[in-house]
């Protein structure tokens, strides 16, 4: 223990010129055995590089996940209607012969509003799939009938024009806001604002364009994010209700399948962030009581966020252990080589001692060599570890983030490995008896 203290004291207390000479001497000795030094260092290089690279990739992935969750709104609870599975349909108590009814209802909405406190805004929405036309161009779009405060609620702002207002809604105005992805297809040359698009036999005046949703195509869609996919068009909820009624009929070859869904999606905003989870639980219980079959789904972005954080934590723990193991192995490699070096250079140690080197001169000489080894390894590893994520982002299209602290940490730990694993060999060297060492062949 005391030798560690004196070592550190020595390293810190040395004047720069002396340290510089000692480092040069170390480099010279290591340069004598280039290949050996290189191979020794590889363990540390790979350890450090893989850790930085994997951290960067993990950080990037979790950043992306969080960004998506933020888009959904961390104070929101999103309820979605889903078609119940086949076996549940069969057990249904023979309602309307061929009209399948499921999903969230306006009554659900009322009940939630009446019984659960701390809820500010609710965004009900209906989703209809249909073709949207501009003269002879068309896209297969999701037409969302929704409320004027949708953009603010879902962090999905309008980039041009405006969203529809309360009065548009009350008047059942034939206005619409297009998703940016859709604009590119329908209006490749001109601004869509003020133009009309056709859906079925109705025309809608375009009053705004939404911000692009980003790379939803690449990453897998999360449960709450189904509606964020592909082409979206927004119309006032009341308009949707009058135009489409409650029953949607899908004609397929030879059969007609009709569905009755009142609300496809409801977004609930909870006033206090820490109330999100309790409210979600209350909503769940409320819905369970009134829905015999599971024809809805509850997505809580905050919960997803928590999950993402937990996943990241586990990822970091796994990475941390890999890092620890590889640095341990690298350190043992350095210790091994330093022990061999010390034995091999017993004669040199004897000569130096005879010419006036003190024990701690020998100790620092070998310690500096092992720190140079591990430090060089760390430096190479850091460089590779920064370069690899760059390649990954470029060629695999994944987002990577190299946190500023990770190369710093990795480098200092690798330097520390040099001190820790170099200490024992250096002590062996320093403890040699000069007479014995000089006699060594």
């Amino acid at each position, binding site marked *: 223990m005391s030798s560690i203290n004196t070592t550190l004291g020595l390293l810190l207390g040395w004047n720069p010129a002396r340290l510089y*000479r000692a480092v040069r001497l170390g480099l010279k000795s290591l*340069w004598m055995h280039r290949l050996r030094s290189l191979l020794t260092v590889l363990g540390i290089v790979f350890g450090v590089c893989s850790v930085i690279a994997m951290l960067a990739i993990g950080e990037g992935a979790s950043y992306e996940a969080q960004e998506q969750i933020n888009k959904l709104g961390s104070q929101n609870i999103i309820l979605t209607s889903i078609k119940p599975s086949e076996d549940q349909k069969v057990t249904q108590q023979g309602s309307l012969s061929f009209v399948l009814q499921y999903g969230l209802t306006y009554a659900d909405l009322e009940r939630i509003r009446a019984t659960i406190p701390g809820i500010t805004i609710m965004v009900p929405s209906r989703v209809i799939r249909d073709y949207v036309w501009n003269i002879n161009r068309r896209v297969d779009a999701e037409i969302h009938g929704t409320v004027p405060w949708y953009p603010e609620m879902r962090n999905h702002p309008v980039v041009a024009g405006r969203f529809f207002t309360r009065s548009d809604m009350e008047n059942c105005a034939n206005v619409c806001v297009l998703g940016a992805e859709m604009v590119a297809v329908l209006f490749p040359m001109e601004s869509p604002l003020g133009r009309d698009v056709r859906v079925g036999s109705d025309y809608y005046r375009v009053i705004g364009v939404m911000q692009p949703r980003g790379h939803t195509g690449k990453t897998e869609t999360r449960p709450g994010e189904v509606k964020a996919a592909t082409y979206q068009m927004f119309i006032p909820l009341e308009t949707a209700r009058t135009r489409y009624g409650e029953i949607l009929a899908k004609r397929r070859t030879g059969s007609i399948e009709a569905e009755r869904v009142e609300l496809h999606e409801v977004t609930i905003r909870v006033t206090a962030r820490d109330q999100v989870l309790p409210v979600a639980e209350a909503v769940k219980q409320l819905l369970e009581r009134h829905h015999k079959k599971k024809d809805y789904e509850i997505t809580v972005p905050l919960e997803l966020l928590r999950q993402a954080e937990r996943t990241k934590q586990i990822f970091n723990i796994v990475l941390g252990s890999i890092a620890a193991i590889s640095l341990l192995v690298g350190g043992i490699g350095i210790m091994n080589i330093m022990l061999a070096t010390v034995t091999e250079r017993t004669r040199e140690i004897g000569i*130096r*001692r*005879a010419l*006036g080197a*003190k024990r701690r001169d020998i100790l620092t000489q070998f310690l500096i060599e092992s720190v140079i080894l591990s430090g060089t390894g760390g430096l190479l590893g850091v460089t590779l570890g920064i370069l690899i994520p760059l390649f990954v982002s470029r060629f695999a299209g994944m987002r990577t983030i190299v946190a500023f602290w990770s190369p710093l940490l990795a480098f200092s730990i690798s330097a520390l490995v040099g001190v820790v694993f170099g200490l024992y060999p250096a002590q062996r060297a320093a403890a040699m008896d000069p007479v014995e060492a000089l006699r060594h062949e």
Partner: protein
Amino acid sequence: MATPIVQCQNVHKSYQMGTVTVTALRGISFDIQAGEYVSIMGPSGCGKSTLLNLLGCLDRPTGGRYLLGGEDVSQLDDDALSAIRGSRLGFVFQSYNLIQQLTVLENIEVPLYYQNRPETECRALATELARRVGLEHRLHHRPFELSGGQQQRVAIARALVNDPLVILADEPTGNLDSASGEEILRIFANLNRNGKTLILVTHDPGVARHCSRTIRLRDGQIETDVQY
């Protein structure tokens, strides 16, 4: 008369070899004055090397006193002995003992390096000494690029660089052909003429003839001590 440079007073040395205690020196006493050129001779196993190690402060006597330049160094600790080796003693070995990864100049500088002398001063001193042993055109060669005689001359330059009180040489011509050996002995004779004190361990009578005094050892004791 001035204080002798080397004073050995009833020096004993014994080693523990497992359970057996081996006594290498049993009561050695002699003085060496400044400017003497002494050879220590004797058959193998007589304790020459042990004596040289003690004189070179590489080891401590188990009994008696050893004074170097009037200072008792027989009970100093390791660091103090290192400092004395570095500043007051010069070593020349049979197998040259140069450091392989260093150049001629850097090898000569080693003793100065451990005395924390500024680098430029070291350079200048080392270059000067290389010139004195006739190696000014070999400054940046490595030891393995030199002949045995040249290597031994580097070692002599290294032994001189710290301006020591005594130069200790252990069979300095043992690995050399006779011509190179003569060359080395000429350098030693020259140094001695200029006032350096030299102690030389050898079992070659031809080498011993160059010296002004010969101490013969047998079984760890002084057999004869002859001044010419």
